[in-house]
């Protein structure tokens, strides 16, 4: 039988419709295998993520005694990747050092008393509030706790915020 003829009889012959059924089964199996492959691929990325989360959970950073930080100063903690900002009224704020525009690292410029992003010229004040765009929200922050006069920062959770509110400040 030529191929053309076999195709014609396919729908009538019960044997050949079974062949059609198997063809569908193969298709479904192929699709399943593809999905499985993709799923395993994504799963491969997971252990790292879990390890990172565990590492982050225990990340309470001890910054130092309250008296070490003068009101109205900003202290950088490069190893903790954050700034500890003590506002003129004596309150504490821990600010992320990553620009909220595209993720550059923002240095504190002491002469101008503000954070200025070198990449796209966003400017933030001592509380992390945006002074000048393109950034459209304030610098991320971390929770600050003061225990027995020691300033501690919880680096496990990044707090995203629109702007600065006095409730975000921790008073000693």
């Amino acid at each position, binding site marked *: 039988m030529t191929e053309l003829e076999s195709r014609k009889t396919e729908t009538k012959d019960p044997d050949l419709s079974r062949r059609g059924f198997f063809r569908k089964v193969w298709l479904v199996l192929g699709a399943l295998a593809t999905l499985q492959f993709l799923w395993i691929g994504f799963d491969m*990325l997971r252990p*790292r*993520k879990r390890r*990172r989360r565990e590492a982050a959970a225990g990340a309470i950073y001890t910054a130092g005694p309250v008296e070490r930080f003068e009101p109205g100063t900003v202290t950088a903690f*490069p190893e903790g*990747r954050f700034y500890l900002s003590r506002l003129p009224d004596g309150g504490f704020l821990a600010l992320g*050092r*990553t620009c909220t*525009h*595209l*993720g*550059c*690292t*923002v*240095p504190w410029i002491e002469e101008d008393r503000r954070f200025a*992003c*070198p*990449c*796209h*010229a966003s400017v933030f004040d001592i509380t992390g509030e945006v002074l000048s*765009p*393109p950034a*459209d929200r304030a610098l991320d922050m971390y929770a600050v706790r003061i225990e027995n006069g020691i300033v501690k920062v919880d680096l496990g959770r*990044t707090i995203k915020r629109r702007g600065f509110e006095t409730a975000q400040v921790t008073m000693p």
Partner: protein
Amino acid sequence: MGNPRKATVAEQTRVRKYFFLHMRPNRVPAATLRYTHTFGLGGMSAVLAVLLVLTGALMMLAYEPTPGRAHDSILGLQTETLFGPLVRGLHFWSANLLIAVALLHMLRVFFTGAKDGPRKLNWVIGLTLLGCVLAANFTGYLLPWDQLSYWAVTICTGMLGYVPGVGGWLQEAVRGGREVGPTTLIIFYTIHTTVVPAAMVVLMGFHFWRIRKARGVVLPRPAGESAPTDPEFARGWPDLILRELAVGTALIAVVMMLAIFAGPDLGTPANPGMSPNPAKAPWYFVGFQELQIHFHPLFSVLVIPLAAVAGLIWWPYRRREADQTGVLFGSPVGRRTALIAALTGLILTPLLIIADEKWLQPTAWAPAVVGHGLVPFLILAAAVVGSHQFLRRRLNATREDADQAVFVLLATAFTIMTMTGVWFRGAGMALVWPW
């Protein structure tokens, strides 16, 4: 025993007949052989892809994809290996040239009316291949792990964060974490050396096969004449294949010269604590970065790029008014409107960039997404649609001509924005003179 020389000749014939003439056509329309019809751009892309695979495989032997070792291993390649700088230079120049050549190839296909009829699907395959080339270049950009690559990737993946809804998740998935780090490097390395090359081999096979199915490249014809039904043919060997070999070897010579005399730099190792000023995306994404400066992220990251990609994919499937297949720039009217569009883009884009920079920036009168996004987007879209109508009514352009003019206008604008970003943006991304 037969004559050994004769046997060699027979062997050559066999290779020629059964290998090359299966890869390449046995005979081709003579008119398509003219160099200025295609400029050999598709073949050049294929040659560059082969160079990239060869040099890439060599570098994989020396490269170590961890943040602690990546920069060092490239440094070792540069200073301690005899041909290390040459191999890296060839890879660097092939990769960058491939973007340029592939884009020019796309323009050639567009302007010779070679995206219609049996070539519709191949246009889409070509666009996918272009996407692969960009993905390969971008993931490769991170691998040297110097300041330039680290911050360029930080900025570009930072743009992903602005996609509404899924932005944060998307960014973290691509980076494999909150910041660009070891996981990012492994993900990028895998995409660069496995995922993209494998996808490209399959797509390139598909692309070439579709060309053969469409009976070779589009047959050129003057405006107003119909395509000859019985064109004159030339032989695949030697007429076509020798020409291809000539273009290929000339290209390899150029890449070799560039690699030897203008090899790539290796900057200081990546320092996540200090961003350079200014921090720019790789040159092929600088146009998008420029768009970011002028539009709200919702439009510059999502709406405009999506509209551009969707428009490009949809273009050959749009209902046609006139058959302009094979006619350079469609028609005499098309040639004129394309020129007008190019000049308009050339003059208007810098003016708009400067105007936006100097006067339009602060938008206190409306939320940024409207004042910096929706309103300018709608004004520009209305201008494009209006000029489309104007060309149709006043200059008697066919729909194809007017579409082409819009394409030329937007392509010119994007080119100008890329040039602005590369040469005219200095510290803090402020406009400066490059000299």
